[in-house]
């Protein structure tokens, strides 16, 4: 059924009994949906706008001002209903399981919002250090926590996201090699199964990206690595466990090889949740790493951000960290500029509200909680994989596994899963697995929820092509035609009204 006019009424639900599963026994999910005049929730501007004559209203001379400003003009109750309805058309972790591989969508404790809301923390970045000792101490203690957790000697909290952390790492590698008179190092090696940000970050840093194939087991191919390493190598960027959930067993040898070639070993922290309290990047020979605090340390993902991507380094690289950093002196905490700092990667010092939540999460869990997080995240991934029929070609995996949808289209499988009350896995990546379903349930799900997830996989697996292609039906919107949206880009309500 497509978007023809006669189908403008609600589509026939797959749960009306026609697929034989609406006996009340199958968990499913009906998302809220508001419809008016044949469309869903209207846009802000469609609810009413007003135009202000700015020349008239502002005290400035006309040549400095715009003529008019037209914006939505809603009463507070109208505005609150608008956003409440929008929120009801969003699936979040608090709605149900969200096993998006490599994103570590774990439950975000409520109390961390309360510590971020403390008005005593609402200070301006240009305040004198002596007047914000509390803020600086939180940052200092967080640097210390992260250093211990990653086995790193020094930490910067400035990078505002994981990719920004990667960028700091690459800039540090560049500064370090330049400092040593080795500016011929113009290549960064990245395994083919790595996160897309690794490639993009290395390119942004001006490096040639050398892509490293995996071995038959899904790990770094040591022979290929040997061939790729040279006096041109600036760094190897590695995720461990990798995106297949596999621990790079040869990590010590990899570190030796990279170091012997004069390169640095970079750790992408996206999958650190699997290792908390069990293995540390610093002990494996990594020289520089980033932490995705919105993954590993449960700060909310906020519909795409903000996150934070602190970077840890070994002693030798500490002088290159972004400025300023926080240190403790006899009369308190102060900011200082590392000797060979790469400078700023953010206008001020990053995403404070995220960092204070990170601090609170780590302080709440402590050693035992962090160790349990890695235990249960790995337990959950392994249990879930044992309960589904889809093949999982690579193992042993840790906090995530990549199943293959086989002859089915993984994207369709994901759409179908939406109707069963769960968020689907990451799809079609990494490409080493055919029709990949990259699944990371995290430690926060219990067995009952994992069984619900497994059932959703199962129902999708049992669905015929027609059912898969017409899914989802119970979500706020039906299947969206993304190809035509991209072919005719309309990116604002102004673009809509021009039509």
């Amino acid at each position: 059924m497509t978007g023809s006019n006669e189908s403008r009424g609600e589509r026939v639900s797959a749960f009306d009994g026609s697929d034989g599963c609406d006996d009340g026994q199958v968990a499913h999910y009906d998302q809220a949906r508001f419809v008016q005049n044949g469309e869903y929730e209207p846009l802000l501007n469609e609810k009413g706008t007003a135009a202000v004559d700015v020349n008239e209203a502002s005290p400035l001379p006309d040549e400095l001002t715009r003529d008019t400003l037209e914006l939505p003009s809603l009463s507070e109750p109208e505005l609150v209903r608008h956003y409440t309805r929008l929120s009801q058309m969003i699936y979040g972790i608090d709605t149900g399981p969200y096993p998006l591989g490599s994103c570590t969508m774990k439950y975000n404790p409520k109390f961390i919002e309360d510590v971020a809301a403390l008005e005593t923390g609402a200070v301006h970045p240009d305040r004198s250090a002596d007047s914000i000792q509390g803020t600086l101490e939180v940052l200092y203690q967080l640097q210390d926590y992260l250093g211990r957790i990653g086995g790193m000697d020094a930490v910067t909290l400035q990078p505002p996201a994981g990719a920004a952390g990667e960028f700091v790492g690459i800039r540090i590698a560049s500064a370090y090699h330049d400092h040593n008179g080795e500016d011929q190092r113009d290549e960064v090696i990245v395994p083919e199964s790595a996160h897309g940000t690794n490639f993009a970050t290395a390119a942004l840093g001006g490096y040639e990206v050398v892509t490293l194939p995996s071995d038959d087991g899904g790990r770094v191919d040591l022979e290929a690595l040997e061939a790729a390493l040279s006096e041109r190598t600036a760094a190897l960027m590695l995720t461990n466990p990798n995106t297949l959930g596999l621990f790079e067993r040869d990590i010590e040898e990899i570190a030796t090889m990279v170091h012997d070639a004069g390169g640095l070993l970079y750790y992408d922290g996206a999958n650190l949740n699997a290792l908390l309290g069990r293995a540390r990047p610093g002990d494996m020979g990594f020289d520089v790493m980033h932490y995705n605090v919105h993954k590993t340390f449960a700060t909310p993902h906020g519909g795409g951000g903000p996150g934070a991507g602190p970077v840890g380094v070994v002693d030798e690289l500490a002088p290159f960290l972004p400025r300023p950093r926080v240190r403790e002196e006899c009369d308190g905490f102060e900011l200082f500029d590392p000797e060979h700092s790469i400078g700023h990667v953010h206008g001020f010092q990053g995403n404070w509200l995220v960092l204070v939540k990170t601090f609170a999460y780590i302080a709440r869990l402590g050693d035992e909680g962090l160790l349990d997080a890695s235990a249960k995240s790995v337990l959950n991934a392994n249990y879930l994989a044992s309960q589904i029929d889809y093949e999982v070609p690579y193992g042993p995996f840790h906090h995530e596994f990549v199943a293959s949808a086989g002859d089915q289209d993984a994207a369709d499988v994901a759409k179908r899963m939406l109707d069963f009350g769960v968020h689907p896995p990451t799809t079609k990546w990494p490409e080493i697995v055919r029709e990949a379903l990259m699944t990371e349930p995290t430690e926060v799900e219990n067995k009952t929820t994992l069984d619900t997830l497994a059932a959703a996989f199962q129902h999708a697996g049992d669905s015929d092509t027609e059912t898969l292609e017409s899914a989802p039906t119970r979500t706020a919107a039906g299947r969206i035609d993304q190809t035509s949206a991209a072919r005719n880009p309309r990116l604002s309500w102004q673009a809509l009204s021009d039509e």
Partner: protein
Amino acid sequence: MNGTRTSGSPYAPHTDEETATMLQAIGVESVDDLFDIPPGVRFDDEFGIDARTERETRALVRDLLERNDDLTELLGRGHYGYYVPSLVDHLADRSEFLTSYTQYQPEVSQGFLQALFEYQSLLVELTGLEIANCSMYDAATALGEAATLAERVRDTSGHRVLVPDNILDGRRSTLENYVAGTDLVVETYPTTGGTVDVQTLESQVDEGVVMCYVESPTVRGVIEPNLDSIGSLIGDADALFVLGSDPVALAILERPADVGADVVIGDASVLGLPTSYGMGLGLFATREGYLRQVPGRLVGVGEDANGRRAFTLTLQTREQHIRRERATSNICTNQAWVALRTAMHVGALGPDGLVDLASRDVTRAADLAERIDDLVGVTAPVDDGHHLREFVIRVDQPARAIATDLKERGYAVHVVGDHQLQACVAGATDDELDGFVAAFEEVVA
């Protein structure tokens, strides 16, 4: 929950019985058996971080932050503490907004996509440019992205990026990092009295310039009076005109599109976020012609299977997860939730409220400068021209000593020179401004 839990993460719900059942289903004896970590790199030590109850943790952070001095901040220079209406916190903290992620499954994420589409549209109205993305990290990183955009779309063979000599250090330095991997070099042009020295800029802008960055209001709070002619001279040289501003300023100042701006960057979180130690929201808007080169996420309109309008992330082939090393940027996680808050704040103000907020700051800044100027040994504002919300003050006594004395009386201002302070009215109440004048009077008396 049936059964008991031994200690561990308070957010991992497994009972011991449940764990045992799951291990049995997997076919292993213990959780440790699931880890494939070689002995040589196993961590057998402890971090030495004590676990705490929720109450203890809240007390820990509260006690630490109480060590901050409670000062009335008259601070700006790129980070502003406007009052944020309560509804923004209450709505943005709805857990559907807070606990979802990037909208890879648009059918189940329509609400956030629509909110981001509305945010993009608000920026289109404010800037007059056709395209706005749904966030960069902050103004500094947006400036860096603008430079890499300039490199990709440039018509000239140039490689010079011009920025004002009074640009904030954090912005300049971030820009330097973003262009470090390109052949671009950053140079400054002079400012006088807080605004662009147009004549000198004109002599610097030639075919070797690929991008020129101009701010209004400037770092010193002055509204740039010559944007029109600046835009013309940059345009004549085929360089990219990047204008730095923010949503409050844009509400009343000349529309960037009308002065020839190709890109607008800035901190959009001046609305939506309270003072947050420099955390921001990178505003990024540009011309339609550069659409395929835009960094970051874009929300577009499509149609769903019911034939209804629906929203989706679009043109993702620009992005790192598809295009890898040929992506327009490495950004993935961004500031979406802050963009949501900014849109809510703009919605709460409406056009009248927003224009009024900006207009009142112009008047209040002028009034405050006049009152301070009356004090002995004090000149304010130092710079000519109109100020949006902050201005530089000259003091005969050493500025640092004055700032310290003001701090003892409960006020924080910027020290921007040996004898120069800077004060900002954004977010301050009229009573607080009265108190500040009284304190200033005592300090210089």
